[in-house]
């Protein structure tokens, strides 16, 4: 059981001057894929950092699997918005650190890491250091570093933001395949509305700062009813009328927030 629950969570920074989150109630079910969209600076990363155990609520509680979050841990793998790869470690060393921490035998580790390198298409770069890679390649290493842990909960902060359009599509389709094959609880932050609709079971829309939950859009029921699963390619899904409808709805809702228009 690895649900995530935000229980009346507020979070302020710096002696309360900056209120990032205001009374957020949000429940992500076990093995559910939830995407958060919202204007820049509305508190999306803050939500993720609370679930990861890097920050703690000013009031309210954050629970993962019914236990209050007290510290970071490998049961909740994080893909950081700014990668946070270790510059002094090679691609392989970055990816395998989590497995070493788990005392996995060397041979098994090697196989798992090679699979991950294959998945992110970085064969030939195993011994490269992060500074020798492009931003997109670094981001893929950060994704692999989280995937190899095979965690119950994946926390991803704009993980595809630095990728070129083609690579992004490949990674998105791969994430969907992974999610179907081996479902896990995912909290996924993005600025891409289409990405959110394509990947998520539900999409949470946040207001401008201080971030509140504005609306939650159920994608899963429509995806299943309209049979999106029949299409393996993202562009085919994006052409479906039901997809366009959801996307436009979320766009409008977001736009109100960005321009600050009254409802």
């Amino acid at each position: 059981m690895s649900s995530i629950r935000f229980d009346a969570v507020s979070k302020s920074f710096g002696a309360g001057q900056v209120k990032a989150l205001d009374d957020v109630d949000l429940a992500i079910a076990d093995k559910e894929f939830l995407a958060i969209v919202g204007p820049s600076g509305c508190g999306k990363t803050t939500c993720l950092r609370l679930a990861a155990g890097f920050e703690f609520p000013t009031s309210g509680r954050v629970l993962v699997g019914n236990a209050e979050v007290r510290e970071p841990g490998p049961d909740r793998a994080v893909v950081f918005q700014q990668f946070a790869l270790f510059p002094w470690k090679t691609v392989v060393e970055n990816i395998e650190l989590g497995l070493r921490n788990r005392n996995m035998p060397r041979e098994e580790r090697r196989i798992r890491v090679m699979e991950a390198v294959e998945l992110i298409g970085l064969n030939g770069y195993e011994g490269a250091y992060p500074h020798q890679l492009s931003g997109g390649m670094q981001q893929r290493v950060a994704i692999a570093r989280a995937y190899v842990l095979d965690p119950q909960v994946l926390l991803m902060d704009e993980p595809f933001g630095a990728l070129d359009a083609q690579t992004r599509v490949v990674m998105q389709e791969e994430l969907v395949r992974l999610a179907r094959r081996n479902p896990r609880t995912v909290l996924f932050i993005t600025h891409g509305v289409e990405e959110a609709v394509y990947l998520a079971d539900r999409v949470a829309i946040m207001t401008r700062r201080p971030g509140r939950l504005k609306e939650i859009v159920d994608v899963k029921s429509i995806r299943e009813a309209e049979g999106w699963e029949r299409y393996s390619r993202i562009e085919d899904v994006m052409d479906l009328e039901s997809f366009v409808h959801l996307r436009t709805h979320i766009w409008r809702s977001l736009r109100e927030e960005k321009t600050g228009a009254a409802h």
Partner: protein
Amino acid sequence: MTGALDPARRMVLGLAGLVGFFGLWALVAASGLVGKAFLPGPLEVAERLVTLLHTSFAGGTLPQHLASSLQRFSAGYLLAAAVGVPLGLLMGRFRLLDDIVSPLFDALRFIAPIAWVPFAALWFGTGFGGPVLIIFSGAFPPCLLNAYRGARQVDPRYIEAAEMLGTPTHRLILEVLLPAATPSIVAGLRIGAGLGWQSLVGAELIVASTGVGYMMVQAQSGVATATVMVGMAAIGLVGVLIDIALRALEARIHNRLARA
């Protein structure tokens, strides 16, 4: 002037300074204003240096005294680095340890190495242990402080990433804090070496029965000013060599990290 001329200009000016210094020294010594016993000329000091390379004075030749000094220096310095760097990293990681050690350390570090001499002599004798403690007291603060500051200034994202990957404490210190703090640590090791070397000679002036400092005190009591000056030159030269070696190491590490 343009920057391109600077290195050449600085070399010429530096050379001029040195020539001026030796010229003035030779002139004053030759003028007879100061008694010859108190101010031998540069040539005389150089001659004395050559002599001391193979003749024994105060129980050893100059190289033997230097070797004995360097031995004490190495022991005290390595001890300072071996204790200071890990302790500094641990203090950077654990708030509790920081709170316990910092006030104590702040109180102790204003006791100059030379002020440790009587205590060191009482407790560890004047042979090896005493001087080693004094060198330690000089080299330890920069080793500890720089490791501590380096660890505190590590980008918190790296620490968060390591924690999220379930990294145990010893590995977090060895594989995250240590590499991230390396530039600061190496700078501390260099400063510590300089202070340690300075303290050593101070210690040997008072305690110890070998070493360059001891040789100088013996020479002083016999008004062998040339020998005293040879000792000073040797101290300066070895200090400069240690500094150059550690600067080169520092530059290499910086170059390697700059690529990242």
